[in-house]
């Protein structure tokens, strides 16, 4: 029996799979940020908070790539520094130690506030986030161009990505 394969279900399924793959690749699990989403995620974090952790957060801007390394103990920043990627030497360089007000923005709680402030103040039409489930925090924040006087400001976009999250023991 000759089977007409033009509309074979496996072909349709494969086409759908490719389309889904394309969508995932384009969005990388990101969704439009909203206060409701941030509040929900923060409530989940606060329902079972992790008091001791180390978080490594990358910030990528058009002419800058930096890595924030922050250790939180009992909910307070214990140690924090930032390093800048030197694309010529191919090393992390220009280490700057951060005080609490500088480091807070890249703690789990600070990332929630960062997005809230962006939604309120920045005038960026594009603010997208990717949320992890266990533990619940903002794994990736994509900030589109900053707008001022009805014009997009060139080279003002930024991406914030949690590269590493490590739960620490109280005695570590």
């Amino acid at each position, binding site marked *: 029996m000759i089977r007409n394969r033009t509309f074979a279900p496996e072909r349709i399924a494969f086409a759908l799979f490719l389309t889904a793959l394309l969508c995932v690749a384009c969005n990388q699990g990101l969704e439009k940020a909203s206060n409701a989403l941030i509040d929900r995620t923060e409530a989940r974090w606060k329902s079972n908070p992790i008091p001791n952790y180390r978080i490594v957060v990358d910030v990528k*801007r058009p002419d800058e790539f930096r890595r924030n390394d922050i250790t939180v103990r009992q909910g307070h920043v214990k140690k924090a520094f930032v390093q800048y990627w030197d694309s010529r030497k191919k090393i992390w360089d220009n280490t*700057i130690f951060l005080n609490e007000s*500088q480091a*807070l*923005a890249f703690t789990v709680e600070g990332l929630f506030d960062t997005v809230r402030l962006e939604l309120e*103040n920045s005038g960026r039409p594009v603010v997208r986030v990717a949320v992890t489930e266990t533990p619940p925090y903002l794994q990736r924040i994509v*900030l589109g161009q900053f707008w001022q*006087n009805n014009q997009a400001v060139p080279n*003002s976009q930024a991406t914030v990505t949690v590269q590493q999250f490590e739960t620490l023991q109280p005695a570590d």
Partner: protein
Amino acid sequence: MSDEPKSGQLLQANPVRMKKEKTINRREIFSWLAVAWGAFAAAISLASGATVRFLFPNVLFEPPTTFKAGFPDDYAVGKVDTRWKEKHRCWIVRTDAIIYCLNATCTHLGCTPNWLDTEQKFKCPCHGSGFYMSGINFEGPAPRPLERFKIVQGDDGQLAVDESKKYQQEKGEWNDPESYVRA
């Protein structure tokens, strides 16, 4: 006895011979496959080459990175001049001793701070980073001072700012003579 057909005799096809003519042996199949794959690879290579070439335009329509900012006397001593903020995203500051050009990009997440004359500070509207008139950060999440652009005084006496060359305080680059002009 001759094999040639006699006049009036129909020429009959030899089925065995015809079958032999249509058969493609294994060696030929591989040859054709090699040709097909070669053609496919060549087409892909050409398409890839064309795509890569497409990434490098023949002409770049980029705005010039240098602009003339007028004469030093156009700037008041002890003031932050905001006239270039919208067009070139920078402020020109004149002190008693020097004139420098600050990049109006917050070092936290790239927003544009505002100069608050009453409070004598730059304040970022996004996350509240604050910078002194010098560009040094003192509050909020900004991890480092604002950057300076290259500024020189040309032969015509006018200030020329080059936005492609930046100087960072934490690297000691504000001592570079091209990061400021003597007033």
